[in-house]
């Protein structure tokens, strides 16, 4: 058997590529491994907050937005009255939210 010159250069290229991959792995590890824990914890905190926001009512927590929208209530009442009359209902259909 004799060495095919094309083959030789492709194995060399593979070697260089493998070496570059190794080098990239090392630099990325050097950059990230020291702070991996701190960053993962920060991400976990954000995820926790997001979960609480999305599922807050299911968990029996009041939606924080309702506190800030309290002063919009007079407007809401008028609009709610318009809505239920438009929909052909004389009174509010909701038991816990009475209207006229």
């Amino acid at each position, binding site marked *: 058997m004799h060495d095919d010159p094309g083959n030789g250069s492709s194995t060399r290229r593979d070697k260089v590529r493998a070496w570059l991959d190794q080098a990239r792995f090392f630099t990325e590890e*050097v950059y990230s491994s020291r702070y991996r824990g701190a*960053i993962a914890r920060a991400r976990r905190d954000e995820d926790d907050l997001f979960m609480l926001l999305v599922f807050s009512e299911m968990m029996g927590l009041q939606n924080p937005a309702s506190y800030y929208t309290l002063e919009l209530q007079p407007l809401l009442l008028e609009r709610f009255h318009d809505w239920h009359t438009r929909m052909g209902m004389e009174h509010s259909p909701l038991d816990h939210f009475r209207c006229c």
Partner: protein
Amino acid sequence: MSAIFLLVVGLGAMAVGYFVYSKFIAEKIYQLDPDFKTPAHEFEDGIDYVPTNRFILWGHHFTSVAGAAPIVGPAIAVIWGWAPAFLWVVFGTIFFAGIHDFGAIWASVRNKAKSVGALTGDVVGKRARSIFMIVIFLVLLMVNAVFAVVIAGLMMNFPSAVVPVWGAIIVALIIGQMIYRRIMSLAVVSVIGVVALYVLIGIGPSMPIQMPAEVAGMSGNAIWILILFGYAAIASLLPVWMLLQPRDYINGLQLFIGLLILYGALVLLNPTLVAPAFNSDVPAGTPSLIPLLFVTIACGAISGFHGLVSSGTTSKQLNKETDARFVGYFGAVGEGMLALAAILAATAGFATLGDWQAMYTSFGQGGVNAFVQGGAFIIHNGLGLPEVTAATLLTVMAALFAGTTMDTGLRLQRYIFQEWGDIYNQQWMKKPAIATGLAVASCLLLAFGAGGADGSGGLIIWPLFGTTNQLLAGLTLLVITVMLVRMRRPMWYTLAPLCFLLVMTILALLIQLRTFWNQGNMFLLVLDIVVLVAAIMVAMECASALKRSRAEMAAQGD
């Protein structure tokens, strides 16, 4: 004497320490087991507990422990001549620091990767753990105050470094975004970052920024200290990926490049040590060599701070127990090499003995400025770089290190305040901004309380910082010794350094107590007494813990 000769002797001795002494300790005393399942494997979670390649782990460990302290300490201590500092750095690295750092990793790995603080509680007792917390707080307090003073001094003395030092922070911020948002690959970003840093160092001398001597009734030095703490407070509140991570990375690269440049220039130039081996003509007011040398050089010979890193993060990532020797002991050797470079720069980087004496006019003078000037002299003559550029390069190296330590230190101090808020049920204290404010206030109190209104005398507390750092090292050595006693193994290899450290620390505190009393500096007098009380408690704790363990062993043996 030729600097190369000293360099070869120093590096040779440390190499023997690594290849012979640490091998003996690893095999006979700590008895490392390649089959032991390390916490990185036992609790592997992809976050904290990750088995890591030992070279990468060494890189992290070394860059975490190497800071400005192994530069500042030796550069101050050469006031007694180069020989005492050289001997303490070399022998300290071999018999103290190596054993301590290596032992801290080992002790932590054998105890589910717990931190030294938690281990002190488990192995020695609850009381010792409380002392440990107090000592840690004191160390952080002093390190932040001292480094602010060091950087402020550098900014005043080398105005050419102002643009690169602050520019480096902007470079780090940009790099952080580039990597976080995956705009470019890390290799490209690394090259861009280092090139940008060196371009800034190149243009620094042509755009010097000199803080006026007095602004709004305060000295320029004091203004810099305030700016630095403002910066550190903001930096410590930012997410780590934004600034701390890219900054540490660039600093790490810069550390290796800086060390290569300095060592390369030394070898090419082969300067003569102009400073005397033993300085018989020390400036008035210089304290006695014994015991002050052993607290002036802490990092570079032995430092308790390393135990925190060893047991905090390194032990959670150790792939095989036998890697502890390379990571821990060789990490200490790396730090010793940095300290050796500082000694050589501060003693061989002057044209004449007169120039050197003009630098070291009193104790605490010289220091990092001598390192920068001496190092610049060597780089200028060895590699042909303009002297002002070389000085800017070394100033940036020292200032960036001190800066990173400051914002890490402030972050840790904030955690302590938040923990106290938790323990004593003070909700307000748990808020990050308030806890950071308290940390900054306590550091400012120390920086200005110790050095007066202009903050320039803050380096007086350097030896006091050394004593607390050594106490921390003492507590770690105590944990290791008690573990060895319980395993019925020889204890003298850790007990002898422990006893030496405690004796020197207590003596140094007593001598400083008299100095502060004579100076009428009540603030430092009180601080000294606090540290002294802690030191005596540590010593008593050592005696009682060892006595108890030996009695237990004797009872079991019967």
